[in-house]
């Protein structure tokens, strides 16, 4: 276990280094973009004052120092000027985390059991017609872009079957002021489905591939020889081993729910972080854009490192990076 701790520490340090370099690059590139003051004189003066405090007239590296100092001492990632005036960027971002997380969480809860079940079924019935149908469907859903079936779901649920009251999700006020109300949940269903298809197909494909490999291993033959039935052998030996690479994939999906899907959020008007990103680019709200970029970078790096480390925990035979 000592080796493991050292490995985890090493990975975390490397990740922090990478993260720092990326944030630096992003900061420099974003600060180099031309910034404009608004027409409103009072507002312009306020922004000007804030910019001077942040050292906008100093060299970029000094500005970066101030930026880092503010983060460390006050958890201040800058201010939103366009999206919600004068609010801290962290507040703007924080208020948008919940819808993203909820929609993605619902979709994962729906997709993971279904994806794994389909994959297991296809692997057990390998090369039979059931497997072939599942494989073709998987191929279709993996390939077809998510927005295409987002439109199909939207069309069916709203225009054809009238199951939801509007094509996009309800606004917070219409849903009774909370994201946890039943009407909000119902209005999220099309978005959740549209997100799920890709997840289900990806997971089913992965599970099928892993399980077909373990099913042909020698220990399966041994298990059958010593008298286990086929289902016993599959559940106790093949599935357990196949889960080794599947579990990290699921864990990384759970981290990924923070990031969400920009395109689905755009189509279903979900007020989440993905939509915030688009908004911050269109309105040129640089501090929010910077924070969103940092956020996406961090999630990506975190997912990668968690996958690698969880491999080591789940299967002691694998210690990546150890020589």
């Amino acid at each position, binding site marked *: 276990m000592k080796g493991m701790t050292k490995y985890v520490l090493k990975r975390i340090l490397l990740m922090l280094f990478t993260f720092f370099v990326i944030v630096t690059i992003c900061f420099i590139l974003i600060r180099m973009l031309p910034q404009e003051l608004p027409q409103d004189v009072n507002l312009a003066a306020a922004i000007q004052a804030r910019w001077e405090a942040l050292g906008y007239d100093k060299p970029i590296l000094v500005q970066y120092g101030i930026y880092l100092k503010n983060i460390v001492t006050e958890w201040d990632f800058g201010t939103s000027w366009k999206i919600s005036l004068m609010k801290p960027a962290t507040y703007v971002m924080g208020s948008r985390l919940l819808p993203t997380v909820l929609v993605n969480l619902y979709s994962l809860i729906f997709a993971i059991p279904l994806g794994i079940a389909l994959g297991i079924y296809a692997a057990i019935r390998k090369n039979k017609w059931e497997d072939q149908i599942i494989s073709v469907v998987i*191929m279709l859903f993996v390939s077809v*872009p998510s*927005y295409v079936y987002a439109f199909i779901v939207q069309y069916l649920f709203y225009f054809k079957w009238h199951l939801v009251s509007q094509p996009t999700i309800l606004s917070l006020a219409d849903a009774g002021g909370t994201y946890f109300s039943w009407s909000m949940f119902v209005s999220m269903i099309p978005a959740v489905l549209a997100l799920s298809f890709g997840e289900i197909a990806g997971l089913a494909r992965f599970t099928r591939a892993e399980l077909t490999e373990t099913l042909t291993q020698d220990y399966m033959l041994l298990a059958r020889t010593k008298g286990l039935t086929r289902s016993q052998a599959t559940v106790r030996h093949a599935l357990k081993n196949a889960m080794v690479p599947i579990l990290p994939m699921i864990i990384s999906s759970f981290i990924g729910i923070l990031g969400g899907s920009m395109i689905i959020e755009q189509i279903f008007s979900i007020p989440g972080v993905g939509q915030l990103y688009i908004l911050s680019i269109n309105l040129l709200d640089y501090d929010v854009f910077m924070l969103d970029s940092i956020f996406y970078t961090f999630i990506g790096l975190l997912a990668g490192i968690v996958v690698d480390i969880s491999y080591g925990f789940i299967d002691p035979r694998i210690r990546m990076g150890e020589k």
Partner: protein
Amino acid sequence: MNDNTSNVNNFNKFEDIQKEKFDFANKGEKLSDQKLDTKPISYFKDAFIRFSKNKASVAAAVIIALIVVYAFLVPLCTSSTKAALLDPYYSKKAPRIVALKEDLGIFDGGINIKYNERALIIELAKGVGAEFDSDDEDNIISLGESMDSYYQPVSSYEYYGVNAGNEDVYQSRTDAYLSQGFMYIQIEQSEYQNILDWQEETGLTILYPLIANNEYNPDTSNANYWYKMNSKLTPVSVDENDHVTKLSYSEDLVLQDNYMRNSEGQLVYYTYIGGGTTETAQYKVRILYYNYYIYNNGFEPEYLLGTDSSGYDLAYRMARGIQLSLLLAVSVSLINFVIGAVYGAIEGYYGGATDLILERVSDILGGIPFIVVATLFQMHLAAKVGGVVSLLFAFVLTGWLGTAYRVRTQFYRFKNEEYVMAARTLGARDRRIIWKHIFPNSLGTIITSSVLVIPGVIFSESMLSYLGIIKLGGSKITSLGTLLSDASSIWTTYPHLMVAPAVVISLLMICFNLFGNGLRDAFNPTLRGVEE
């Protein structure tokens, strides 16, 4: 040492044999390997044979080829006038091909619309109005007869039911192009003369009499209300005693015209509304837009896939979009192939500190989310080098990482093989070993991964342009994502705007994935069924 002594012993044993008894083993014979009876099969040929046995992949390759042919043939077949044509009225219209419409009833430019009685009569009356004959002005055909008219927008209709207001409702199939009907425009006198000449020459009619400005014309701006109607748009007939009767729908209904006539009782075709007195005089005229379109452009409105949301030919726009997607994807794939191969080869072959440093660099590049890279490139470079080039840079910046990783793995696998050691012993330099001995072994993997880059690029490009992060909506160039994003708010009314681009992009993605998987199985049969 033992060998030496035994050799000597053997030599001694045969010492006494006479010289004459020796004979050359192969004197006079040519020494060569026996020629192979069968043709040798190279690695690539072998892979090709395996690939062609995979039906799904071959089908995918054929579909890709068809899409490529479409993308490059359609712009060649489309005349430059039509490609640049941006008609203000014929936007968002459905697919229409005249020949197919007449023979088969498909590609009729049609949309399904429900009309109440008044609206149905207004629609049918466009066909009646278009058949108006100025030489025989009292002979107005009935609604039923007008169904045979070429300009009749309603191609078929049937009784549907009763609506909430207890009115009869008819379900119709309406040609969206002809439904444009009549409109008022303002032209110069010289233009008016040109149109008259053109009418003479072709026998088609553009100019129709103006509509009287009286109590039977409730909306003077609408050029389609040419018959007498009351303020609720219900057709009426007026007898000599000014007695007004409401008319109701029947097939034999003959509408009473409400054309403007001058003091001598003749039809008025234009009114003078300003400008000079001679050629620059401005006339207000009433035109049949369908024929006016032909007059302007020289062809009938025919669009294989309809027109897009701004009025361009959708078939042409899509061909442009596919071209952009494919060219971008293929160039990204090629550039990635080169950079990734070189980078991965150096990493894998030298290993050690070189590998460690280069891995850090690719870690950092790989850690930046692609969407952030694309956005930053767009913001910094798009104004200087254009949207497409900056997008290409964004793809190239991080796209080669996957290829490099695969090449590196392959190099780690092969660099300690005996044949590499043999080559090194014989004095081959590093460069030769890398490119001649190790690289060809990993070529199959690299080609496969390069092909699988293509659907990824197509998807990312369409997603970025859909989200509006990159803007590719000029008159010359467009992207499938832009077309989809233009359609996204109106596609339930105009489904063709969404269906065609969505189908093509889905087909491209599916086919490139199948094609790539087929290549992987062909190059590396042991990997069959394994997902990367």
